């Protein structure tokens, strides 16, 4: 395959390298995007299986199936895998696939580094999962690895967790640099900033957040490593440190991280709603500014995770009000999505259904977030299932639903075939019902005081927990339908047109389906 192509041999250029080398050595953004997405799906099921263990143990009060320490490992690794292994790689996969096409670029800006970013991830998660089989077990301190749980009281394998997180971070930073440089430097002539699709905009801001905060995660795991193994006392008051310092550094990373997992979702929904409402997105510019505002505010709210640590009152007040401020740009977004649909000629294909569910259910998660932001109320909610309900509404019915919506939306473009609409609708309705059975009652048990991350609970919570577990198993099973749809769609079906969806606009719908191996070797003309 020659590196320099003339404009005439685009078809000759379309042949793909074959065999395993295609995937190991690839520099193609579509191949790398596919690998990210498949990896994320695999991790979604591994992390999901751990959630099933958690729900199995919590199905009835009392200790039934697993030891408490193993239960802790399941909650920890479930969280780590879902955040770093499922949601983030899925968004990166979508970015890889769609951003170069959406801005009319031939590939990502740094194609080899792109491949490196991906291939680090399977190895990082291999280390993390292998650490579960170490003597003494794997990480059991929660995905937030608070000191001193992760230092004084953690088991031997913590060093493996630390280094696994380090290389995940390297992967994320390189991926983010690639995205941000691609968007900045690779736009086709005429693709001005304010013409970019919102998915590109949201990813641009997400990449900025990643570059800013992943290094902070690296510092905090480094301090955990030195505190545990090298005698430092960053998080030990006897040596002049403070365990609360851990929480400050962690959440300075952790809160922007939350937006890293939701801003691309906003971009996806902003692509899908206009397509199926057959109207242009309402308030494009305000969407861009709202995204940027959320990103800036995300650096100023981290301590709302720490209201119960005994911070000075002025600090809690500052973080409370700053947190509530985020509801404003988020509200702008929800308003714009609803306004886009207003008097639209709507149809309800599967991507649209997931996007609609996203708007409603993400908003529920947003509202419970506002409740949690109220400092005095948070004293009651802190560390209860109410928090679990809140972040699963924003992450599962928010981020994960948007990823599923994106997969249905772009699958025809990726495979060249339409997915099975009836199976997709079945998947949607099963997911929608079961996910609410799963997470909605968590609000109630949380408000009643059921603590999170504990393998047993008071008898008064028994009925709700049985209910929640059934919802969990159903939600897990429902996702098998998704795999079925994806596999079926990859193997064949009704041929997709280039535009795929009647109301779809944008460069990705002007190239054939399936998208050729190389697109836009020649920059397109942007009207």
């Amino acid at each position, binding site marked *: *395959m020659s*590196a*320099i*192509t003339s*404009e005439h041999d685009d078809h000759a250029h379309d042949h793909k390298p074959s065999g395993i*080398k295609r995937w*190991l*050595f690839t*520099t193609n953004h579509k191949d790398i995007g596919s690998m990210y997405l498949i990896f994320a799906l695999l991790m979604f099921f591994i992390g999901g299986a751990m959630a099933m263990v958690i729900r199995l143990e919590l199905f009835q009060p009392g200790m039934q199936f697993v030891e408490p320490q193993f239960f802790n490992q399941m909650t920890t690794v479930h969280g780590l895998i879902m955040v770093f292994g499922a949601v983030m790689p899925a968004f990166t996969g979508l970015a890889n696939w769609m951003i170069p096409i959406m801005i009319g670029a*031939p*590939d990502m800006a740094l*194609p*080899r*580094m792109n*491949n*490196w970013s991906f*291939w*680090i991830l399977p*190895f990082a998660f*291999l*280390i993390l999962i*292998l*650490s579960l089989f170490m003597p003494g077990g794997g990480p059991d301190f929660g995905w937030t690895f608070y000191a001193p749980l992760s230092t004084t009281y953690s088991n*031997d*394998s913590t*060093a493996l967790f630390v*280094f696994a997180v*380090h*290389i995940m971070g390297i992967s994320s930073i390189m991926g*983010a*640099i690639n995205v941000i440089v691609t968007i900045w*430097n*690779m736009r086709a002539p005429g693709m001005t900033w304010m013409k970019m699709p919102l998915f590109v905009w949201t990813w641009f801001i997400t990449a900025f957040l990643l*570059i*800013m905060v992943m*290094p*902070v995660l*690296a*510092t*905090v795991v480094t301090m955990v*490593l*030195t505190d545990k*193994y*090298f*005698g*430092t*006392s*960053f998080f030990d*008051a*006897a*040596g*002049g*440190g*403070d365990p609360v*310092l851990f929480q*400050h*550094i962690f959440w*300075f990373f952790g809160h922007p991280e939350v937006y890293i997992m939701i801003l691309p979702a906003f971009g996806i929904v902003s692509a899908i709603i206009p397509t199926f409402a057959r109207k242009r997105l309402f308030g494009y510019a305000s969407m861009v500014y709202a995204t940027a505002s959320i990103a800036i505010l995300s650096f100023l709210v981290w301590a709302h995770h720490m209201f119960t640590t005994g911070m*000075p009152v002025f600090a809690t007040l500052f973080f409370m009000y700053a947190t509530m401020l985020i509801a404003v740009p988020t509200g702008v977004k929800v308003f714009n999505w609803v306004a886009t649909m207003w008097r639209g000629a709507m149809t309800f294909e599967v991507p649209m259904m997931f996007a609609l569910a996203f708007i409603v259910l993400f908003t529920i998660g947003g509202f419970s977030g506002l409740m949690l932001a109220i400092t005095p109320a948070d004293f009651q909610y802190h560390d209860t299932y109410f928090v679990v309900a809140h972040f699963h509404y924003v992450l599962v019915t928010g981020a994960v639903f948007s990823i599923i919506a994106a997969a249905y939306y772009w699958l025809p473009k990726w495979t060249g075939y339409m997915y099975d609409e009836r199976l997709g609708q079945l998947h949607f309705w099963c997911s929608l019902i079961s996910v609410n059975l799963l997470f909605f009652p968590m609000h109630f048990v949380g408000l009643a005081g059921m603590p999170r991350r504990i393998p047993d609970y008071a008898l008064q919570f028994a009925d709700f927990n049985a209910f929640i577990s059934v919802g969990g198993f159903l939600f897990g099973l429902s996702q098998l339908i998704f795999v079925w749809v994806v596999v079926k769609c990859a193997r064949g079906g009704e041929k997709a047109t280039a535009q795929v969806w009647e109301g779809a606009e944008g460069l990705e719908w002007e190239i054939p389906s399936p998208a050729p191996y190389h697109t836009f*070797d020649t920059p397109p003309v942007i009207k």
Partner: protein
Amino acid sequence: MSKTYEKYYVPAQSPWPIVGAVALFCIAFGAGHYVIDMSKQQSGFGGWLLLLGLAILVFMLVGWFRNVIEESMTGLYSSQMDRSFRQGMSWFILSEVMFFMAFFGALFYGRFIAMEWLGGASNNAMTHAILWPEFLPSWPLLKTPGGIETQAMPAWGLPAINTAILIISSITLHFAHTGLNQNKRGQLKFMLGLTLVLGAIFLCLQGYEYVHAYRDLGLRLDSGFYGNTFFLLTGFHGVHVTLGAVILLFVFFRVLKGHFTPEKHFAFQAGAWYWHFVDVVWICLFFFVYVL
């Protein structure tokens, strides 16, 4: 399309990324096991795996950069490609800035908040009275609440000399850059070589300072929050200086081979940016760790 444009070079397949991923796996898995075995005072495969990983990483970097340099020298890179590299390097340096910012943040928190609270400030009178009534908050933290004692590293000896050396090295590097821009190859070679020598002197003095701290001052990595922040900040800075020096060393070899033109010299530019960045970090370090 009648308008002409430069092709953006998309490389064909490359084996280096997967080699790099294997290297990082060996490094992470090996380092993890090495640390675990060390803490349990047993021997294992960790150290060897770590070394293997580092060897693979070096092999990968050499191969990868050889490819990139060949592509660059054969003129495959457009000015747009050059911009991609420059922007990529800038964002990478921003991530490094954040890495150090977090450590500085920890330093400030420990010094201005944690230490004062342990001494009873704010609403922590009882913390002080009950936990460590003898603890006196003062910076540098020479006696921890738990009772570990150490001595402070004075600023106006070796550290001040090191500061001067590093600042001068940034200036010589700047003159190397002007030499490159004005096509004065002699000035370029001399100034770049001088920068490397100054960097090496800095690292040697820094190593000597560590020996001095451990042997004479009893200032150790584990001697409380002052020692923690001292060694992690200066240590990570030292690692970055080493990395910057290695980059500049390879740039130096390329200069000797006649690479780089006034118009195109991304590798030089990147190495220079990185060097100036570690210099700025050091100036912050000098003030916040040593002087104040």
